[in-house]
């Protein structure tokens, strides 16, 4: 229980830091936000009025206090460009991103675990090397380039998948582009972990007492080898969001990443701040969930703390 509260307090501290940083970023942006709203031909009076309306004439700490106050009410401001509520825009785009991210994460875990197990059972240093080299090469692909290659081969040449759009068939290529790097990483990790676990005494004991191999691998070895993977899922979440930004741009996927990229090009500061802040809240949340999950699945941590 104490561990849980500590973990929650920690998340709050991080979120505070995140809000300070996003606020700082927004304030350093050199262009004049009022001018972006009013357009290049606006006269000084209009500009002053807009500045006042947006609170840009106040002192920095006041602006920050107001900003946090609004944040706590779930208000991220309005787009300078379309005057749409930022929270609304994010919520509109969230399902598409979640769809893409969950599909690709599921694919990455499935491929990674399957390949990791298969290669670990074929013990031998040449397999080790092949897994290491193969995963390093796949990890080196720029995700946007991988996406374009998949589009060219499977959508344009072979016509197996649609070139763009949104739907069940349309998600396959972007999710694959996003998943391959992560899958390669998980494959190597699980391979190494399993090789180590299979050398442990308790696995030998399990074999010796006559358990069927299925049970030894599935129940004894795999469970322990999978633990570090769970931590990584949380840590990788930030990396996944980075990949999402590029993948959505390549495939014109109507998600958060596209929203952020468009906002950057329009110098739409509330929208940039909103998407950046929102995605880091997602990251902090994902890490919190993973830590709590860890308390559930690894009894050693619970015992140590009580």
């Amino acid at each position, binding site marked *: 229980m104490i561990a849980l509260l500590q973990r929650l307090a920690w998340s709050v*501290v*991080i979120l505070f*830091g*995140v809000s300070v*940083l996003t606020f700082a*970023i927004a304030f*350093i*942006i*050199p262009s004049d936000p009022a001018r972006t709203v009013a357009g290049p031909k606006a006269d000084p009076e209009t500009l002053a009025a807009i500045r006042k309306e947006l609170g840009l004439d106040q002192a920095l700490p006041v602006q920050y206090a107001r900003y946090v106050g609004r944040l706590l009410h779930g208000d991220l401001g309005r787009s300078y460009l379309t005057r749409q509520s930022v929270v609304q825009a994010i919520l509109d785009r969230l399902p598409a991103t979640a769809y893409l991210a969950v599909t690709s994460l599921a694919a990455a875990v499935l491929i990674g675990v399957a390949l990791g197990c298969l290669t670990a059972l074929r013990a031998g*240093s040449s397999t*080790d*090397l092949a897994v*290491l*080299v193969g995963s*390093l*090469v796949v*990890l*080196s*692909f*720029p*995700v*946007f*380039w991988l996406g*374009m*290659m998949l*589009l*060219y081969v499977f959508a*344009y040449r072979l016509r197996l998948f649609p070139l763009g759009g949104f739907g069940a068939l349309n998600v396959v290529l972007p999710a694959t582009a996003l998943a391959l790097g992560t899958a390669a990483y998980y494959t190597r990790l699980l391979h190494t972990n399993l090789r180590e676990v299979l050398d442990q005494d308790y696995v030998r004991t399990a074999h010796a007492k006559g358990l069927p191999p299925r049970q030894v691998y599935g129940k004894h070895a795999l469970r322990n080898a999978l633990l570090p993977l769970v931590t990584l899922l949380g840590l990788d979440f*930030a*990396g*996944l*969001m*980075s*990949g*999402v*930004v*590029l993948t959505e*741009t390549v495939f014109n996927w109507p998600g958060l*990443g596209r929203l*952020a*990229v468009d906002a*950057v*090009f329009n*110098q739409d500061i509330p929208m*940039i*701040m909103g*998407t*950046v802040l929102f*995605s*880091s809240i997602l*990251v*902090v949340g994902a*890490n919190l969930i993973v830590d709590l999950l860890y308390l559930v699945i690894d009894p050693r941590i619970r015992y140590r703390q009580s």
Partner: protein
Amino acid sequence: MKGQGSQRALAWLGGAMILTLIAVALAAPWLSPFDPLRAVADSFGDPFAPGKPYWLGTDELGRDLLSRLLYGARISLLVAVVATSLTLVIGVTVGVCAGYFGGWIDTLLMRMTDVVLSFPALLLAIALAALFQPGLTSIFVVIAVVSWTGVARTLRSEVLSLRQRDFVAAAHALGATPLRLIVRHLLPNVLPTILVMGALSTSNTVLLDAGLSYLGLGVPVPTPSWGRMISDSQTYYRLAPWLMVFPGLAIVYAVVAFNFFGYGLLAVLGTRERRT
């Protein structure tokens, strides 16, 4: 052991690939058959396929792709070296200070690291890139600002364990100042780690730079950059897939080189440490 030998070979291979890349980048003016910035072929809007004398084809503006790729190696390497050095300077400083001084300094620095880590790197990078004037300097700074966290964490834990060792206590007892202790005693011991982190950060930097260029936030045109070439090829990829394939392979080559070197070195140094 056979496994260790092959990892050593991997490090050598990566090293050789890096040296080749550096040689190609330096020799770009002599290796390039054409001017990378000028239209040399009459292929405006209708790129030539690879063949003689344009070995990798031409782009939609009639420029020779091979020459552009060779010159692109220069800009990629420049960004890789400078941005990674900046990353290492920030990361090593933060990590060593946190590990050595401990206490509230450690808490503050590590909390800062956690805050930066909770931003998706690319998203933070494009938000930052949007506020600086586009140019090389801003790319260096943006990449360093989003990438130093991993280095800081690794160095911190390394220094934490070194601090328990007798030679640090001895130096301390002899009255060494913190600065002298860090520079003369701690840094030489973490140098192998810094080398490995440097190689791995470089592959990250190349990918991040390519991503920024792809989004149009990298080196301004007309400087040839691999990421930008890929995004420019998007309009033509059905007609001229080579405009997308070759710059991508160039990026993969560079990233693979630094990954091989870094991971190979990591494995070799890891086993050496375990033996001693």
